[in-house]
């Protein structure tokens, strides 16, 4: 059993939880994820590690309540327990193994969309701790869904955008990136994009055009997260990879996003049916948020 020691709401339907999991905290690295099973009957839910504290033995996650399982998780409070919390899973981000002096010469831009901000945070923080100055573009649908602004501003130069123009730049993250490169004379050696698959797809189309090598963090459907089931397979450079053990980070210019987006939709219908049954019981109805 893994205790939730802190819970904070960051935005409507987006919450942060700090969970006591000393073994995971001890080994966690930027780029990795964990899997939670809330109770006996729960499914295994993959979530990116947003922060970790080795002394406290805690790991933080940021979750967007989307479907049945994440909505159920939204009801958990500080003091409650998760049945299972396993990790860290996946390969840590490549840059932590790179030569520091080389890395310091590189100009890096992070591009985060929606809850993708959460996984970007430990990476940008790692860079900041090594004395590397990075740009961070954050996009959200609307102002109130923009999360972790304060924390992010401490680890990099922020560029904010909202789809509806309620805050920051009026437009999408791709518009901001194009503007920075084409009008503001920015040059980037590398982009790291994390967010909804569709956002990563369009970022990659743009960075290909701008010739910026791009790393993405994929979030396909997973079951075990240890390489045992193949549910998480994605095509990268024409080869099948298991995102949970070969990734979750890949060269974005090699990822077959259309296939990945298609595969992500595999259990959507099922879930609707499930929800319908659910509502029947409880006699109330939720409107599903968009990613």
């Amino acid at each position, binding site marked *: 059993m893994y205790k939730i020691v802190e819970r904070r709401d960051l935005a409507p339907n987006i919450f942060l939880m700090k969970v006591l999991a000393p*073994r*995971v905290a*001890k*080994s966690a690295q930027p780029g990795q994820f964990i899997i939670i*099973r809330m109770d006996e*009957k*729960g*499914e*295994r839910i993959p979530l990116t590690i947003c922060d970790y504290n080795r002394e406290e033995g805690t790991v933080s996650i940021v979750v967007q309540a989307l479907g*049945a*399982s994440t909505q*159920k998780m939204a009801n958990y409070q500080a003091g409650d327990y998760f*049945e*299972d*919390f*396993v*990790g*860290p*899973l996946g390969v840590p981000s490549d840059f932590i193994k790179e030569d520091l002096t080389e890395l310091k010469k590189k100009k890096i831009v992070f591009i985060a969309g929606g809850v993708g901000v959460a996984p970007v945070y430990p990476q940008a923080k790692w860079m900041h701790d090594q004395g590397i100055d990075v740009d961070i573009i954050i996009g959200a649908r609307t102002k109130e869904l923009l999360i972790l602004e304060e924390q992010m501003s401490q680890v990099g130069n922020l560029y904010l955008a909202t789809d509806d123009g309620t805050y920051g730049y009026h437009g999408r993250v791709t518009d901001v990136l194009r503007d920075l490169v084409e009008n503001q004379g920015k040059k980037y050696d590398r982009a790291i994009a994390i967010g909804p698959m569709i956002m990563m797809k369009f970022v990659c189309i743009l960075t290909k055009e701008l010739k910026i090598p791009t790393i993405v963090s994929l979030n396909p459907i997973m*079951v*075990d997260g*240890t*390489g*045992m*089931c*193949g*549910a998480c*397979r*994605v*095509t990268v450079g024409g080869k*099948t990879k298991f995102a949970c*053990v070969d990734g979750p980070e890949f060269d974005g210019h090699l990822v077959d996003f259309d*296939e990945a987006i*298609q*595969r992500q*939709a*595999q*259990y959507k219908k*099922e*879930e609707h049916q*499930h929800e319908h049954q659910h509502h029947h019981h409880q006699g109330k109805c939720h409107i599903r948020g968009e990613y």
Partner: protein
Amino acid sequence: MDRFTRVPISEQDPKIRATNFKEVCLGYTEEEAMAEAKRCLQCKKPQCRGNCPVSINIPGFIKEIAEGNFVKAAQVLAEYTALPAVCGRVCPQELQCEKTCILGKKGDPIAIGKLERFAADWAREHGVEVGTTKERNGIKVAVVGAGPAGITCAGDLAKEGYDVTVFEALHEPGGVLVYGIPEFRLPDAVVQHEVENLKKLGVKIETDVIIGRTITIDELLEEEGFEAVFLGSGAGLPKFMGIPGENLNGVFSANEFLTRNNLMKAFKEEYDTPIKVGEKVAVVGGGNVAMDAARTALRLGAEVYIVYRRSEEELPARKEEVHHAKEEGVRLELLTNPVEIIGDEKGWVTGMKCIRMELGEPDESGRRRPKPVPDSEFLLQVDTVIMSLGTSPNPLLSSTTEGLEVDKWKCIVADEKGQTSKEGVFAGGDAVTGAATVILAMEAGKKAAKGIYEYIQSKKQK
């Protein structure tokens, strides 16, 4: 009943069991077991025994059953096997002990597996405690993986007095016995009982710990004070064919399909994990795993085809499982091989293009090699494809452990006693041999326990 005819065993009716997940075989009653046991000739040189990988004293435990001494029967078994209730159910007996039973020459061999299962079930149901433990010596040994190999190794070491901790990646111990083999063939309760026994011996089980990620082997040895480590991590990495369309929605590995159903209990309404089974399912492969996937899909309401490239003769699955699958309505598309999976514009499977095969010259394995019949392609209309082509060891451990030698199939290299290329690190089971059987994994776990015991003794003397 004459000596050459096996006492029949009761099973759930095929039509009924095809709609539920309860165990197919209901097991012998006391009277039936005694009657079957009395058929045994109590051979002086029992042919059966030599063909059991762990050389169980077969006439010995059968004699006790014949005389109604069920506790004693269980005790005899406990001397040789930690998992009699499991092996009695899933061993390929027709290729092992029962193959060489002398009665098989003229009639039915003794139902050794069924009797083994009877004795183990009887002991469990009557709360009989078997096995004894030596005084604790405080020496710590780590076991990686809670499958049959790990469970056996941990049990044997605990009996010798060692302080054993088993680390399991998944949230439940049991390995393939809980995530792979379905309830209708091996009820969870049977496995849970064995795990409870292990805990009674003082073994600690830490689930949710992935060795190589959560903590490394070197950390176990250097920071956590373990004197030795046993790797029983199995062969869990699924293979795919590499044909076009394999990443379409509706194509699963057998591991995914079975894990959703068995470990995550997707077949039970009140569990959250979903499972997709279409109306028509093709299972590609012919081993135990394929049979289990097919019979699971059938129970979830689908029409199921097994697509296998050789003939029925060569099916590697246990005969009993093939027989049960056919009885339940699984259809066999033999001498058939998939060439492509076809999907619609949204990426969902709509069919599988197959080609007929014929058997040519024997290959290295002695089985006749299948080759395609020209111009015999046809479309099998299915909306789900389950790939069951075998598995190989997960490279996670070898890639995160300095100095652990693996062969070209990523199998961990270990000698007879389980010793690997790394000091203090032993291995056994599917992780070493590639996908094999429960009994062989158990045997490897036993041998490694002995190897570890000797290793620690010799270290103490230095």
